[in-house]
């Protein structure tokens, strides 16, 4: 016990001293690889683990797997430094070798890890030999034929070892090698090489179960400069097609516009007449809507202008119906009139239009009528005012061509019109006549009678037209007193203006008997020759009608019923449908169809 303890202490001290001196036992060696080039011999290499500062010797020991006999390496030199070469006699196949290396120096030794080796599986042949590469000129084009020989040590002849080969080719300035497997043959043809370039070739081999050999030294071969025949043909074709493509492109470019038209015909965009897209984009709604408003639509000619003071209807020899709506319109155009749409037109009332004939004075009308004619609007206005005072619905403003106001008037019989208001109020003639029936005058005029209307001169158109027979419907004076200047009317047919449309068309209806009740006369289904329509050419179109003519309201039957006895209206409604003239349709300037023409003329 003491001895062992002393030994330990001494060993420890010795180690310390040795470490201080920088010497130590050798490091552990390591077997790196064992290789057999021909499956007959083999060599093992190791690397030292550090000599520990002292000269170190290495020894390799082995034993076979089925014996315990340990042998030492027979040859340390043949294979070089730190190697062990096993010759044929020492090599046994299909037997595992357990090999270790021992490193030893003055201080100690070190043993490597054992390695199990079976020679059969560590075969790595030598490189192939005599690699040659030649250029072979063929009709298809030149190629390179590479040939070589087996490594000298490999015994393939007896079949002891079977080798397969591999070559790799690289042309100058290429980055990668192209590898080809050659199998067991000892030559190879390399195609698809670029002309006028240098080729580098290398070969290696491998046994059927083993490791690849190293690559041989590079063999150089220079490809000749040639142009492959196939390639030249393709080049020609390519150039030609490119040329054609260029020409086509240029042609297309030149004809670009016509091509566009041909392929993509312009699609007509929606257009609204008078609609300005730019205006819409600008976002000013007022302007947009203003543009939508067609000037002159709806026909906003002053209805007042269409008021005719009197209408001369000539019968017998002097049946000359002259209508001068235009003159009227000129006079009264100045008056302001708010234009409404035509919806209000067509009330049951019938207007009496006084058509002014461009004649000098009236026969028998006397100076009074002249006077009347002078007043024009003013008188009219005054008449209006006077009429308004009367608070009678039957204000004699029937000359006003505004049909729109007519409906307004009737529901408000006591409506007062302000003085100067140009808005005419039309009364339903029949109603008026109804009211005025007790005041029927023997005058030949079918007039709107107003009770309270003073004896005022009715307005006449400024240009007093000659009329053989003054047909002053608004001659209120004549209601109470016989018109001084009103000559007795011969047997004439009186036409009552039903309405005046914006086109200065007088829609007339004749009155058979001025003395009788207008209403009745209206309603009797007598045969009247009525004025169907007054064209713009101052032509009265007469129509013989046998049916009731009472109703003139074709669109507002209800008004008729309220204002007139229903009986005349109803049949008239039907009648209206039947006598709807087709030719009466007039298309006005802006495409507006004047349906007023469709009014039945009685």
């Amino acid at each position: 016990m003491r001895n062992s303890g002393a030994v330990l202490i001494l060993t420890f001290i010795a180690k310390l001293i040795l470490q201080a001196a920088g010497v130590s036992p050798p490091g552990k060696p390591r077997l790196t690889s064992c290789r057999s080039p021909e499956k007959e011999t083999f060599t093992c290499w190791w690397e030292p683990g550090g000599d520990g500062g002292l000269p170190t010797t290495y020894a390799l020991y082995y034993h076979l797997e089925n014996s315990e006999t340990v042998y030492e390496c027979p040859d340390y030199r043949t294979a070089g430094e730190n190697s062990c070469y096993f010759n044929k006699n020492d090599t046994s196949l299909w037997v595992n070798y357990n090999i270790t290396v021992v490193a030893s120096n003055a201080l100690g030794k070190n043993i490597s890890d054992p390695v199990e080796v079976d020679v059969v599986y560590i075969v790595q042949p030598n490189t192939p030999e005599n690699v040659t590469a030649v250029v072979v000129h063929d009709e298809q084009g030149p190629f390179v034929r590479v040939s070589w020989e087996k490594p000298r040590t490999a015994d393939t002849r007896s079949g002891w070892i079977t080798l397969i080969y591999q070559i790799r080719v690289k042309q100058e300035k290429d980055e990668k090698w192209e590898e080809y497997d050659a199998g067991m043959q000892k030559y190879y043809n390399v195609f698809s090489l670029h002309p006028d370039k240098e080729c580098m070739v290398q070969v290696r081999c491998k046994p059927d179960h083993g490791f690849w050999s190293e690559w041989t030294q590079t063999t150089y071969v220079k490809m000749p400069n040639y142009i492959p025949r196939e390639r030249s043909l393709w080049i020609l074709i390519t150039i030609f097609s490119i040329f054609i493509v260029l020409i086509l492109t240029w042609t297309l470019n030149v004809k670009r516009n016509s091509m566009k038209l041909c392929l993509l015909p312009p699609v007509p965009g929606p257009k609204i007449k008078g609609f300005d897209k730019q205006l819409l984009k600008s976002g000013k709604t007022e302007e947009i809507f203003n543009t939508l408003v067609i000037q002159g639509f709806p026909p906003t000619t002053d209805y007042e202008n269409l008021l005719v003071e009197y209408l001369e209807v000539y019968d017998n020899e002097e049946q000359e119906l002259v209508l001068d709506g235009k003159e009227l319109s000129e006079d009264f155009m100045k008056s302001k009139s708010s234009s409404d749409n035509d919806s209000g037109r067509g009330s049951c009332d019938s207007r009496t239009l006084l058509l002014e004939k461009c004649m000098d004075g009236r026969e028998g009308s006397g100076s009074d009528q002249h006077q009347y004619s002078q007043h024009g609007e003013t008188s009219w206005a005054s008449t209006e005012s006077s009429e308004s005072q009367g608070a009678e619905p039957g204000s004699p403003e029937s000359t006003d061509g505004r049909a729109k106001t007519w409906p307004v008037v009737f529901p408000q019989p006591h409506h007062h019109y302000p003085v100067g208001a140009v808005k005419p109020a039309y009364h339903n003639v029949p109603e008026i006549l109804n009211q005025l029936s007790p005041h029927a005058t023997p005058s030949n005029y079918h007039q709107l009678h107003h009770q309270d209307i003073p004896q005022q001169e009715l307005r006449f158109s400024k240009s007093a037209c000659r009329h053989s027979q003054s047909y002053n419907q608004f001659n209120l004076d004549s209601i109470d007193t016989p018109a001084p200047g009103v000559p007795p009317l011969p047997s004439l047919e009186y036409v009552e203006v039903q309405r005046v449309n914006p086109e200065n068309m007088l829609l007339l209806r004749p009155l058979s008997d001025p003395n009788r009740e207008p209403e009745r006369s209206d309603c009797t289904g007598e045969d009247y020759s009525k004025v169907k329509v007054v064209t713009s050419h101052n032509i009265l179109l007469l129509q013989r009608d046998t049916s009731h003519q009472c109703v003139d309201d074709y669109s507002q039957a209800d008004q008729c019923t309220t204002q007139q006895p229903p009986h005349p209206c109803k049949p008239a409604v039907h009648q209206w449908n039947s006598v709807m003239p087709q030719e009466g349709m007039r298309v006005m300037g802006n495409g507006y169809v004047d349906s007023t023409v469709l009014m039945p003329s009685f």
Partner: protein
Amino acid sequence: SENQRLFTNAVIRVQRLHQLAAKMINDFEDSLLPEERRQLSKIFPLSFCNSDYIEAPTGKDETQKSSMLKLLRISFRLIESWEYPSQTLSGTVSNSLIVGNPNQLTEKLADLKMGINVLIKGSLDGQPNIDDNDSLPLPFEDFYLTMGENNLRESFRLLACFKKDMHKVETYLRVANCRRSLDSNCTL
């Protein structure tokens, strides 16, 4: 000739068997866990293979000196020694190798054995088949069947021995083939 064709055929067959054996053991080693690998390294040196008792050349010179008949006979015995244990062999490897028929390996060995037998008869060429101890029943027939414990180690040993024996037969047959006729494989 017909014999030549059979020889070439036999060489091809044994080459395939050897490749199969190599793949089997590689797959087996790849499937091992690290600790199992450590365990496996400790079994080296390998214990005996069943075919160790069969006297076979272990070097090129020895092989070259052996007659073709001897080589054929040795090959025959080697193949025959694996015919029975190959069933156990199939169980040790994954099914990916032996697809379909699990007895595929056994059948291949049987076929090869028959072929070698034909070659032997052909090389005998009328001479009586003087088998010394080749036809004796193989000792340690249950050699591989006795392994119970430590299946890992025994499986590996089984696979390693199989691969080695196949390589032996391949080598012998190749040499015999090249000696018989200068085949293209030999001259190249």
